[in-house]
């Protein structure tokens, strides 16, 4: 742990903002998000729907600038890739930073064989010869746990089941040996047993290939099992951040506390499950104070008028709250 914290981070995101639309209709989807990911480390990005998790990932890869504006910085190999022009971003996308999606049913091109789709990535990012590429494609399918890999290269996505397609997707994403994997809810569309397998697979591959991983999820159980660091997002901002151990053991932001209490494993059996009252604010009309204030159980006057900054709260922890919760909340899942 100490060694890891000394080395320069693989990816350093700071002050990342992404806004869609303009004027009165502008939607600040991601606001002032900062975090770092080290080699071989898994960062969990959690939050409910619309909290900006996915947009954060897409902004890092420069996908959001097609529809909105992204500011701030994401330092990758000494370069701020938020400002890197499209042509150069293409080399980074898939070659250095890969991304996998939530929906394995639609994330593969239905008309091309699996082999061709792996081959295409390799062609775009490596100088391998045709036979080397084929060898790598078989190797990748094998690595992600697809049996009889060589014979399945010529098959089409519809011949694979959901879990298998997600494995193929991972094989495609990692074929060119990227150094970082952005996983956008990779297991949400899969059933529970397959979920565990895919997560194990991502983790073991992250270690084998020495990659950093950002795992977007809304499942705290997944975070507890797989991540080293966690960042909790609410209404486009990170509200609490730190090592998984410390954040899940002793959450300090009332929102994180609420999330922890709404996980079935954390409450005694046969008791009603806690749910945070209310709904997230519309990004079109965010309150001037803390975005969570309206739903917060620890709210005071100041919460309505001014917004708390993300501030250090103990070793490697930061929390954006005026009334941090002490010694409350659930134990680690």
């Amino acid at each position, binding site marked *: 742990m100490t060694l890891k914290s000394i080395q320069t981070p693989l990816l350093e995101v700071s002050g990342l903002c992404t806004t869609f639309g303009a004027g009165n209709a502008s939607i600040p989807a991601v606001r002032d998000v900062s975090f770092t990911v080290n080699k071989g480390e898994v960062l969990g990005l959690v939050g409910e729907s619309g909290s900006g998790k996915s947009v954060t990932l897409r902004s890092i890869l420069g996908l959001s600038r097609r529809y909105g504006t992204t500011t701030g910085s994401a330092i990758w190999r000494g370069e701020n890739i938020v400002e890197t022009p499209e042509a150069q971003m293409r080399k980074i*996308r898939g070659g250095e930073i*890969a*991304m996998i999606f939530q929906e394995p049913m*639609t994330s593969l091109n239905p008309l091309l064989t699996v082999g061709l789709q792996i081959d295409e990535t390799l062609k*775009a990012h490596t100088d391998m010869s045709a036979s080397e590429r084929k060898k790598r494609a078989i190797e990748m399918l094998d690595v992600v746990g697809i049996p009889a890999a060589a014979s399945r290269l010529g098959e*089409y996505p*519809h011949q*694979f*089941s*959901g879990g298998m397609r997600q494995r193929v997707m991972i094989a495609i994403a990692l074929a060119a040996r990227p150094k970082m994997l952005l996983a956008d809810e990779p297991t949400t569309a899969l059933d529970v047993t397959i979920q565990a397998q895919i997560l194990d697979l991502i983790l073991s591959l992250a270690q084998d290939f020495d990659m950093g991983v950002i795992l977007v999820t809304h499942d705290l159980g997944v975070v507890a099992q797989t991540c080293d660091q966690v960042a909790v997002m609410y209404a486009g901002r990170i509200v609490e951040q730190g090592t998984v151990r410390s954040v899940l053991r002793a959450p300090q932001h009332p929102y994180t506390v609420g999330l922890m209490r709404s996980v079935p494993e954390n409450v005694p059996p046969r008791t009603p499950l806690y749910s945070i009252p209310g709904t997230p604010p519309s990004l079109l009309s965010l309150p001037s104070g803390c975005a969570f204030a309206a739903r917060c159980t620890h709210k005071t006057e100041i919460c309505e008028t001014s917004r708390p900054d993300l501030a250090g709260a103990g070793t490697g922890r930061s929390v954006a709250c005026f009334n941090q919760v002490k010694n409350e909340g659930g134990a680690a899942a």
Partner: protein
Amino acid sequence: MSELSLSQDVAPVQKPSRIKMALRKPGFMVGATIIAISSVLALFPGVFAPYDPNFIDYTAVRQPPSWLHPFGTDLLGRDSFSRVIWAYSVNMQMAVLATIFALLIGVVIGALVGYYRGIADMIFGRVVDAIITFPFLVLVIAVVAVLGPGLVNMYIAITLVGWVYYARLMRAEVISQMGNDYASAGIVMGYSDLRIIFRHLLPNAITPIVVYWMTDMALAILLGSSLGYLGLGAQPPQAEWGVLIAEGRNFITTAWWLSLMPGIAIVLTGLGFSLIGDGIADLLRPRG
């Protein structure tokens, strides 16, 4: 890794091949047969036509159908059957040439504006609106009026108007395909825009285009013969169905077969293309 490979999901059962599926569809088979025969007639009219279509025989004018002249003869004693057969090569050529350039232009423009959207898409929308406001035939006649009558000018006129329909369809289809993650996946894999558009999106978006193309070929024959009838397309004495119907119209009460037979040829080929289009709609739909 061994415990991972334990979870074997069984691959879905293989579906029958497209060709087998096609053979089971009577409509498609009828259409395919009609178009196959029409194509053979169009390519080798000389083999099937008993006479030269322009051979004039003043000793046998306006004869009713007989064994010698199955569809009778016209005002100049030309064999009507031979002229209908020879017209296949002109009218089938129309089906292809009046549509293929519109298709190519429309598909490329539609795919590009569908992918990039933005200002180009807004301009495209206005252009489309402006063109489809006019009835197709009126606009084509206007363009032919400017360019002058004749087959080549007719093809140019139809292409200038017709690409809009393909482009509109392609744009909508590309936009809907963009909603699938494989398009985003292509971007995050670092593929170039052109590769994503033409290798990934286009093949997935092409089915409705092909279906529309079949209908459009039927329409092109109809439009081409309408213009021929009006004297704006093929010019007499060329054997073309519209021209043939026009030539027979003065004798419709006495020698009805002169106009009826080319009319039937138009209906049959049109039906053939429509049936094929219908069948292809079912067969080409991407599976899985």
